[in-house]
């Protein structure tokens, strides 16, 4: 048993970057191994796309061009669904002894949450790619140039990051993985109360006010404008502002919850 006690403790310190990268690797492995969740993450967007285009689409827009309108909404809805599993992943981790082990090591242990967030971002970017691919097959014909495409994808990525941090914080706040899943579901209704699926001028006044002043609408409109080669105007700044605000607030909330939950299982 010589391996046990050979003095091998390295003297170098583990930087936050190194430990966070190790945690990202761990979460990506987790994502790849949960085959059911991964299948859902890819299949659900496709199902939603078909549902909105063929089932609801005909009734909402009789011209048959609903697909041009709805794709940005589907992208955000799917990103929301995809990100919501982060709440469960984080809650699972917190109810397990492994995070307390990380906390007793000389490293920045809240990187374990960052790991989940980054893995979710990667997972959802793949899902977004699938959504766009299927949309193109169904006749989605954006007119964006390369720069506008990059801009649209950057906004999508920023939105995924924001909502994932929010779900990570919800996962930390929840008492159990099941509760985390329940709370997360509430957030997923936000896209329905926005311009994602129908223009807001079809809504009653009070609802219209809610829809126009909640974060999803400017984000949707920005993506829509960029994909069809229009100038998003003020919506872009609202979208960036909302995303930045959500990331900052959720990050601070998550860091506070993470610190507070030490030793409580």
């Amino acid at each position: 048993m010589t391996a046990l006690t050979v003095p091998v403790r390295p003297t170098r310190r583990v930087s936050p970057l190194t430990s966070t990268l190790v945690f990202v690797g761990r979460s990506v492995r987790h994502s790849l191994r949960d085959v059911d969740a991964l299948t859902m993450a890819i299949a659900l967007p496709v199902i939603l796309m078909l549902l909105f285009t063929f089932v609801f689409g005909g009734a909402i827009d009789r011209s048959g061009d609903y697909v041009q309108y709805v794709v940005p909404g589907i992208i955000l809805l799917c990103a929301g669904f995809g990100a919501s599993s982060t709440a469960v992943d984080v809650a699972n981790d917190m109810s397990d002894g492994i995070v307390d082990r990380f906390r007793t090591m000389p490293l920045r242990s809240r990187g374990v949450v960052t790991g989940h967030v980054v893995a979710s971002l990667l997972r959802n970017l793949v899902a977004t790619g699938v959504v766009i691919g299927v949309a193109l097959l169904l006749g989605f014909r954006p007119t964006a140039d390369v720069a506008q495409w990059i801009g649209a994808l950057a906004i999508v990525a920023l939105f995924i990051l924001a909502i994932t941090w929010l779900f990570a914080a919800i996962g930390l706040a929840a008492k159990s993985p099941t509760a985390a899943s329940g709370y997360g579901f509430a957030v997923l209704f936000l896209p329905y109360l926005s311009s994602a699926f129908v223009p807001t001028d079809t809504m009653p006044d009070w609802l219209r006010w809610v829809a126009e002043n909640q974060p999803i609408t400017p984000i949707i409109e920005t993506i829509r404008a960029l994909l069809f080669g229009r100038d998003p105007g003020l919506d872009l700044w609202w979208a960036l502002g909302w995303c930045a605000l959500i990331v900052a607030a959720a990050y601070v909330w998550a860091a506070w919850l993470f610190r507070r939950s030490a030793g409580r299982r």
Partner: protein
Amino acid sequence: MNGTAIEVVGLRKSFGEQTVLDGIDLRVRSGSVFALLGPNGAGKTTLITILSTLVRPDAGSVTVAGHDVVAEPEEVRRAISVTGQSAAVDGVLTGEENLRMMARLSGFTAAESRRRAGELIDAFDLAAAARKRVKTYSGGMRRRLDLALSLVATPPVIFLDEPTTGLDTRSRQALWDIIQDLARRGTTILLTTQYLEEADQLADRIAVLDHGTIVAEGTATELKARVGGEVVELRDAHGEIVREVPTDGSVEALRDAIDTLDALRVPGASIGIRKPSLDDAFLALTGQSVQNVPQNTSTEKEVVR
């Protein structure tokens, strides 16, 4: 690190109304094995969470490896590792991946991590399962991996929180061998246990924790001696113990005990006299018996959580 590895003075901790630790004083010598013995709910795990910097004490001072756990948690974390009551391993990853992850997090390079994981897999007899997901491991394998993870970077102080709870006899013996081997090589070990036999086998000194206070401390021999004289036991025709009567060792007390047992009129009975066990000591000190049969599969805490 000569002298004292762990020093606890006047430690108190409450959660809301409930006082969990009510003035604990402890001193653990460097390189020794110290057992905290106590029933469920005595405060053993809370003490470990404070010693390992997870939870802050309400009052008192706690020093591990010469560093205060509140003022210098980072320095304490460099000197310790913790093996939890519930195996703190990543069930989704394989055993090897767990070890490599822990090695990376301890400051090894990728290549060093691979080598270190290999060494520990061999040392802990995990080679057959190294590439299987930990979810599929038996309880004994999980604990071995758990302990291996704690030893990735050979810390000078190790906390083992109920290391063998829920294990079968063979796995428990394997873990004991590893712990004794570590102790021989100079690691300071503080372990909690509900099993007297475990404390008796492994520990240089034992503290008995009950309702948040330490009711006795000493070597196993000293604790047994505190109970005093002989125990008279009555066995039935099959050799099973029917009744035990502790005595102060005087002739009168022994005669009284034998009379009491004789009055039970057990057919084919025999009487024996023995020195008190640690269980007798525990019973005398805390007013309750502890589980003396480690084959028990799960503790209350694990089920509730």
